[in-house]
């Protein structure tokens, strides 16, 4: 098991081609119903959370994203 690291959430840009990545995410949702969008997003969040692997970063992102 990966150790619970304690990094902090990146605030500065970390993407070489930010517009391409942004539009790839948005376009992936284009033809999906609301229901499928939510299922898609849930899978995406789980995949990325595991890839990040840093509980502190994930928790910070959860706080920042909370409306």
């Amino acid at each position: 098991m990966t150790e619970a690291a304690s990094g902090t959430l990146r605030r500065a840009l970390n993407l070489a081609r930010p517009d391409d990545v942004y539009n790839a995410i948005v376009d992936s949702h284009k033809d999906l119903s609301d229901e499928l969008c939510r299922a898609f997003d849930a899978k995406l969040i789980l995949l990325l959370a595991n890839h990040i692997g840093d509980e502190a970063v994930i928790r910070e992102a959860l706080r920042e994203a909370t409306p």
Partner: protein
Amino acid sequence: MSRRLAVREIMSSYEYRRYPYRRPVELDGKGERRPVVIVGAGIAGPTLALSLAAHGVPSLILDEDDTVSFGSRSICQAKHSLEVWDRFGISSRIVDKGITWDQGEVYLRDQPIYRFNLAPEPGHKFPAFVNLQQYYVEEFLYERCLEETLIEMRFRNKVTGVVPRNDGVTVEVESPDGRYTLEADWLVACDGVRSQVRRALSLPYPGEVFHDQFLIADIRLKGDLPRERRFWFYPPFHPTNSVLLHRQADDILRADFQLGRDADPEEEKKPENVDRRLRQMFGPGAAWEHEWTSVYTFSCRMMERFVHGRTIFAGDAAHVVSPFGARGGNGAVADADNLAWKLALVLKGEAPAALIGSYCSERRAAACENILQSTRSTDFITPRFPASRIFRDATLALARDFPFARALINSGRLSVPTAHVGSDLDTPDSDADWAGGPAPGRAMVDAPLGAGWLVERLGLGFTLLAFGEAVAPPSGVATVNVGTEGLAPQRYDARPGTAYLIRPDRYVAARWRRFDPAAVEAALGRAMAN
């Protein structure tokens, strides 16, 4: 588990023998003050009585009924419970009669997506789990209790009142021959989720009620039966919900169908409706007989304190969890094991009554852990709000291709001994170079030793495990010389000179890289609240 919707009928092939009632001597003006009165002959009560008897402490068990558990109820007997019961000689009976398993399989629709092994390493005396109906476990416990001269079991004796005193408890009891009172130094309520003792003292039982209903169908199925635990999300034979399948002794299977919140329990319990579900599950060629049918809901509750003066609560009377994870009956055994040695030391005057306070803090920590784990399982199995279901289903969808998602599937995190790290009784590590082994506050781990097992070598009291060097522990502490070869030193991260102080309940009290009599003496005093 709550039996609020309760058992409709018992069709069991198990013969419920009636245990004898005898007229209580108190009705004839006899009887004396009891050191320990235990209310409830379920799992916790007899386990506590046997453990007290092993320490030389007599006890009296009161039970309003005169037979064992109706229905199979708590069927998964965990390794740690088997290690406790082994001291009374009944674990070999449980293993022989029960179904040993450590594999589980999780299905999504008709596809297996995840297989787990709960015993990844060999070299333990007992397996991760043995499935055996609660009535057999209670029968074996009762038999041992009835052999013990230090234990008296009174069947058909119901507690009607409890009067706390400064130095004990007065217990009001109703028997078939009339009412009487008992004086006890300590009263231990092991009388289940609807504890009469808790009610008599008007103590609250705060917690959370879950509304999903489940149908248990215990059946005797002809043919080859699976040994592993199987759990289905959305199976073709029950497409809207989940199903759990466990094998028990006597060729009995337990199918546990999630019914949802809106099911009508009376309709669901009708044999023709149960049969329809089973037919869809097992196919047109299958044949079965019913053993026990029950529709249940459950709640997670915990008392704010488990010790109220001289009255102590254990098992479901003190805390209750959902059935996912086998934490009810096994938690009750752990309660009894934690309490017995403390009560014995206090009653013998070898430790102050404050030692009993540590039962509350340590077992409340365990109950919190059990409730957290079982609530998480429940939330995964029965998602409580729309987004919760969306993430659950996303996890299931990813599970086949992504190992990480398989780890997130929570169909029950099965009972392992809980830790109480930071307990006042335990001495924190002073050596900084531990890279493994059970830290203070954690349960000891078994390993092969000589021709037998490490767990068999420990006695009733405190034990010093010495690795490789002979030591002279304080009086009253037994020594087991483990050596430096084999699995045991690995499991304890031991080097020549390493020593572990093990409590009577087989938890680690302290450990050192080098044996130091003064340090052992200090840790021993601390572990006895002296």
